[in-house]
């Protein structure tokens, strides 16, 4: 007789609606509409020593991926807004992990996931009109993620960590391969320290790095000469205080650091080094036993490094021309406020 393991099923979904407005003179545009929705099923099986975790997550394209004309400008910098883009294709990611415990307070889960990412359309530039009124079909390729996660209780600390490897397939535009992201390494460490019954401190750090991309060459895709990807570091500290059983308040400081400047002359693409700091209050309120409301506000500052040193003007005769150079774009500073509200309801 085979004992059927105990199973726990969890279904989750999230969606959103965005009001986005770009008000730079001459580039005014807005997008008001839904963003893509996501749904997932997580099944946790229980056996004596192993806990298999089966997951399926999907992206349902309820948002718009084609933003013609100036509307394309409403896609915004991911360091200035939380929702930078509004639509992609139908994607599905099955995943499998197996949890085991070397000791009572040290848990390990190796896991693997594969994202099949479906095609979607994107606006394109029409040279004859000089407008972004055409369409491309983008096949973004698939992503394999293999990782190992561990959680341990060390004294009063709870420490969690994950390390992973990602591999992506080629990206096609209208059936033609236009690139392939380099293999990636990712890591995240999170720690919780309970200072007292009511005060906790959360620490979180992430790192990501991708190898050299493949880019279009004269004979198909070729590996770029210099890696156009950077190291990206994200760090955060968040002390919280349980004001009541239902209300938790706190303060968050986060930073993001991208370490490298790169100018890809083939793609005319400039990827600037950048630092972002963000500080602000956070709040979680338990509305009902199955519902939580989260509010957060932050003030942020972004400093973007100078661009490549390019020749801006060359005037002269013979072997001694006057050459003017400048870093383009120059160092840029951004600052702003970010306010977010989210509700979580468990059925």
């Amino acid at each position, binding site marked *: 007789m085979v004992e059927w393991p105990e199973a726990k099923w969890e279904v989750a979904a999230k969606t959103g609606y965005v009001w986005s407005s770009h008000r730079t003179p001459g580039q005014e545009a807005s997008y008001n509409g839904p963003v893509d929705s996501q749904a997932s099923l997580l099944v946790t099986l229980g056996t004596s020593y192993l806990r298999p975790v089966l997951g399926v997550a999907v992206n349902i394209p309820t948002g718009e991926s084609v933003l013609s004309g100036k509307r394309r400008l409403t896609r915004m910098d991911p360091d200035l807004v939380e929702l930078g883009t509004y639509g992609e294709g139908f994607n599905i990611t099955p995943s499998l992990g197996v949890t085991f415990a070397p000791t009572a307070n040290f848990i390990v889960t190796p896991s693997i996931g594969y994202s099949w990412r479906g095609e979607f359309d994107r606006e394109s530039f029409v040279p004859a009109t000089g407008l972004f009124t055409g369409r491309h079909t983008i096949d973004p390729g698939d992503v394999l993620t293999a990782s190992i996660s561990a*959680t341990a209780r060390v004294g009063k600390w709870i420490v969690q960590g994950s390390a992973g490897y990602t591999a992506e397939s080629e990206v096609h535009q209208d059936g033609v391969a236009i690139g392939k992201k380099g293999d990636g390494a990712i890591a995240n460490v999170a720690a919780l320290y309970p200072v007292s019954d009511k005060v906790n401190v959360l620490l979180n750090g992430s790192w990501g790095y991708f190898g050299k991309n493949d880019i279009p060459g004269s004979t198909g895709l070729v590996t770029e000469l210099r890696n156009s990807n950077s190291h990206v570091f994200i760090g955060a500290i968040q002390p919280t205080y349980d004001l009541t059983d239902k209300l938790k308040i706190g303060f968050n400081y986060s930073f993001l650091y991208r370490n490298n400047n790169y100018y890809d002359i083939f793609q005319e693409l400039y990827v600037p080094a950048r630092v972002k700091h963000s500080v602000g209050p956070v709040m979680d309120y338990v509305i009902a036993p199955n519902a939580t409301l989260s509010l957060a506000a932050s003030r942020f500052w972004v400093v973007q490094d100078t661009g490549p040193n390019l020749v801006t003007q060359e005037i002269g005769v013979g072997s001694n021309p006057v050459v003017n150079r400048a870093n383009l774009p120059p160092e840029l500073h951004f600052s702003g406020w970010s306010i977010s509200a989210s509700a979580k309801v468990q059925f």
Partner: protein
Amino acid sequence: MTKLLTLLLASAALCNSVSAQQAPCKSIKALDGTCADPALVDINSRRSAVISSARTSYNGSPIGTVGLKPIPYERLYRDDPVVYGLPTYTTTITATITFDFGDGKGPVSTQSTSTTRTK
């Protein structure tokens, strides 16, 4: 050999007896035979599912996240102008070259660069 087999059987019986007397674990058993902390088991199982499915969309996976707002973990892979179509500075070099045939009135060549923020 018989003594050894008897000893092993006795040990196995003792282990079964001890196991039978222990309360069942709320979660899995650790490899050392103790009961694993159920909260840690749940946290880590969910974390592994989040990491494995994070690339489902720009917004990650509804299973959860492993980062903190306002700079989420998902930010690590949002720098993809082809897939996500996000703004990246594009520097366009436009060169204008004027040849001078030696009359001394004009430059040999000029080159200008313009920078535009396009997508």
